[in-house]
């Protein structure tokens, strides 16, 4: 297997830029739009000293804006109202939240929470398709005169004298052996005064930045969940537009953190999914299977029965909270949205925070452009903006929320209740946490059988109507990659997979990957009779492998730009 590695001895075309925003999701697009607004205002006031917008670029690895965006999604409109007052009139909003309920499920029945806990109250929020929403936001950005390069990924961070000086885009036209094909085009070196990383969850350049500057020191390690989502079209009358349902409990046990969402959208479309904490212990657990099992609960079955699954996807989300957020700025760079860790772990919402962080980063970028200073000192104004904003206010209250669940659901609930009455403090000022992958048990330590969780272990078979095997679901993600390119899931040492991991953890990558990228294939010349095989073309860019691999030998890097899922309507 040949993995994607940077080529040496290649000339990369250079391009000068003022600001490069990597990633055209909610954070990146809000940042670009806010920056355009500020420059427009400036130019109106200072006609003889205008700032150009031509050299501000957004890089987006998807073929079209929004295609790699996946979320529930409920939008808390707070930041959008600041960015574009009255945005509701024109934005693609599917429904306003009209009804909400929280259920605790057991295998056969359900118990409704008599009151909806405050963090789950969603009145005033909107049910949206994040794909459609970002597509619309992207149009606004382009109308504002900012160039969005779709089909281009940021593949390498350019660093000089400890300063980030831009990014290199992906090399196009490499074959399986990392050799140039006839259509080879080297990546561009976009030399930027300011590089803003808005890559979303577990960003690949963000990972380079963290490694290079040790950004993860002195804070909690980031913890993640993976959301597996299906979009359904159901017979009319099953769920009202704007109806919001959360569940906890079955099929999970007290050993795992997670739950489901079901949102009624318009036109009988239902968004449903299961978020699974990536800090579970049993390496055989399969989040995609959990979701399939969840759908067989009578409550869910009767909702979906006779309907049709129309799209599938998966994505991780960082919910380590305030104490896991990375430093936000340095020499020539800033971090926004999920890349920095802006998610409210209690409400499991981050879109509004991503938008707000993008806006605040834009304000600091604008000041830096005016002052002609792109140093850490200048850009640190972004850090103070965030700390003075409602982002901090909102996240501080839930600063210890997710950490409290490290020892199971019941203990977590008790801590969460104490935190609720102590304004987020709980029993300690700062709850510590551990990276999720460190909590995985070795298979030798597990009881044989499934420990009452057989239904979550191993691959789902699917009945083809209500439940699906992984490959059928992957087909519905619309994911596509040119097969003739190097593998973009870079495994630094496949010997670990074929020897140690097989024995110690039973190759959990086969199970946690929601797109069947990893397979252990029978082979005669390896000690355990099976060797790892990477079906990279199935990848839906969720980053679970990069996060959850127990040896941390997998690095997700962008494949050739344009490849990836097609999350239309998700």
């Amino acid at each position: 297997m040949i993995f994607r590695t940077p080529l040496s001895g290649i000339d990369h075309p250079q391009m000068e830029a003022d600001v490069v925003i990597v990633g055209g999701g909610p954070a990146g697009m809000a940042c670009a739009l806010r920056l355009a607004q500020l420059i427009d205002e400036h130019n109106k006031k200072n006609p003889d000293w205008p700032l150009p917008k031509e050299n501000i670029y957004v890089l987006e690895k998807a073929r079209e804006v929004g295609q790699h965006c996946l979320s529930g999604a409920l939008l808390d409109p707070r930041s959008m109202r600041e960015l574009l007052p009255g945005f509701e009139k024109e934005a693609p909003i599917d429904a306003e939240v009209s009804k909400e309920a929280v259920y605790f499920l057991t295998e056969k029945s359900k118990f409704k929470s008599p009151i909806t806990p405050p963090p789950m109250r969603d009145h005033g929020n909107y049910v949206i398709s994040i794909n459609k929403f970002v597509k619309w936001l992207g149009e606004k950005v382009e109308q504002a005169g900012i160039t969005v390069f779709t089909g281009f990924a940021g593949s390498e961070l350019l660093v000089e004298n400890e300063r980030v000086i831009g990014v290199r885009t992906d090399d196009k036209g490499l074959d399986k052996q990392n050799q140039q094909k006839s259509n080879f085009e080297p990546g561009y070196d976009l030399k930027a005064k300011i590089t803003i990383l808005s890559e979303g969850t577990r960003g690949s350049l963000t990972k380079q930045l963290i490694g290079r500057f040790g950004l993860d020191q002195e804070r909690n390690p980031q913890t993640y969940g993976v959301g597996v989502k299906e979009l359904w079209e159901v017979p009319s009358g099953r769920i009202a537009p704007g109806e919001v349902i959360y569940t906890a409990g079955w099929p999970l046990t007290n050993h795992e953190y997670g739950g489901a969402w079901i949102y009624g959208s318009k036109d009988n479309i239902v968004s449903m999914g299961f978020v699974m904490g990536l800090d579970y212990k049993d390496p055989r657990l399969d989040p995609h299977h959990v979701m399939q099992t969840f759908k067989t609960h009578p409550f869910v079955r009767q909702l979906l029965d006779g309907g049709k699954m129309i799209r599938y996807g998966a994505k991780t989300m960082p919910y380590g909270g305030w104490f896991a957020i990375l430093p936000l700025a340095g020499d020539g760079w800033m971090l926004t949205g999920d890349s920095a860790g802006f998610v409210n772990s209690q409400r499991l919402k981050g879109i509004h925070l991503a938008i707000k962080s993008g806006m605040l980063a834009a304000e600091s970028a604008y000041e830096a452009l005016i002052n002609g200073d792109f140093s850490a000192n200048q850009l640190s104004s972004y850090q103070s903006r965030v700390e003075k904003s409602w982002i901090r206010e909102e996240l501080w209250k839930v600063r210890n929320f997710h950490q409290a669940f490290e020892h199971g659901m019941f203990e977590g609930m008790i801590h969460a209740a104490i935190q609720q009455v102590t304004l987020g403090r709980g029993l300690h000022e700062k709850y510590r946490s551990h990276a999720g992958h460190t909590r995985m048990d070795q298979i030798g330590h597990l009881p044989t059988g499934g420990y009452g969780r057989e239904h979550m272990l191993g691959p789902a078979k699917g009945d083809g109507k209500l439940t699906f095997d992984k490959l059928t679901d992957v087909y519905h993600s619309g994911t596509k990659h040119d097969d003739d390119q190097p593998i973009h899931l870079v495994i630094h040492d496949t010997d670990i997979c074929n020897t140690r991991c097989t024995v110690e953890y039973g190759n959990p990558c086969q199970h946690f990957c929601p797109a069947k990228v990893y397979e252990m294939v029978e082979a005669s010349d390896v000690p355990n009779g099976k060797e790892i095989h990477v079906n990279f073309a199935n990848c839906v860019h969720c980053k679970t492998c990069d996060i959850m691999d127990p040896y941390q030998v997998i690095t997700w890097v962008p494949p050739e730009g344009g490849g990836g899922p097609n999350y239309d309507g998700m």
Partner: protein
Amino acid sequence: MADRVLVVVEQREGKLNRVSLETLTAAQAIAAETSSSLEAAVVGGSIHPVAQEIAKVRLAKVYAIDSPQLERYTADAYVAALKQFIASKQPKLVLMPHTYQVRDFAPKLAAALGRTLISDAIGYRKDGATLVFTRQMFQGKFAADVSFSCDPPHFATFQAGSYRGDKVEMGANAAPVEKVAAQLDGAAIRVKPLEVFKEAKQAVDLTQAEIIVSVGRGIKEQKNIELAKALADALGGEIAASRPICDSGWLPMDRQIGSSGQTVAPKLYLALGISGAIQHIVGMKGARSIIAINKDAEAPIFEIADFGVVGNLFDIVPALTEEVRKAKT
């Protein structure tokens, strides 16, 4: 006079592209339903034999649009010749097979006449007086109905495998062939083709194969592909594979069938050790007969197979090869 449906058939170096017959099958049905007369056009140099071959199909007339400048394909010359011809004959509908060559010139041709092209359709139906074409979206997950709102001539192309070429009706007598001399302005042909060459590693066009023997991961090891090759040779078919095989480099990528490879519709498709994930099935479900051999009785391939054998392909395939050889001698 009745409306005309014109099929532009494809030939290369005097050899008919078989996919053209599929388009003619569709065109015969459309002509019958719309009470139109069906005509065909062949474009190229020295194309008389191809025109004669097409004339055997039940249709009203075959035009041989001939010019030395059309000897080697260029989009410029083809568009110039067809534009003149279509403008003078005014067919209501122009149908073409969705081949690489057609993909190259058809958009330009439609645009040159200020018309719309419905490309890569997989079927049609008549809705009142309107012809509605079906196109696939989202890798075949959705089908979209589209129709023309512009004035004729209307241009449409059909995906390979949408119709059965062997179902084309032959005429009682050969249709007349009319030679059309294309008037071409040499200066307008901006492309000068050089020698035609084949890529060194013989590229295969599986869409042309009548019999395909396809292998999946059940074949286990690269050396076992020889078993399947022997069967393909005995049957006079081509070898193909599902993605894991081409992924491992055991067969070249141009032999991959499925959503990320080729879409085929052979007469016979033998699936050896292929489980039948949806990604593979979309590439071969148009096959007339599907025979699946798999050791897993629950493999989804059996849901679409016409004949299924649950068993060990390493026992079955050599025996089958032997029987085929015997039957052929």
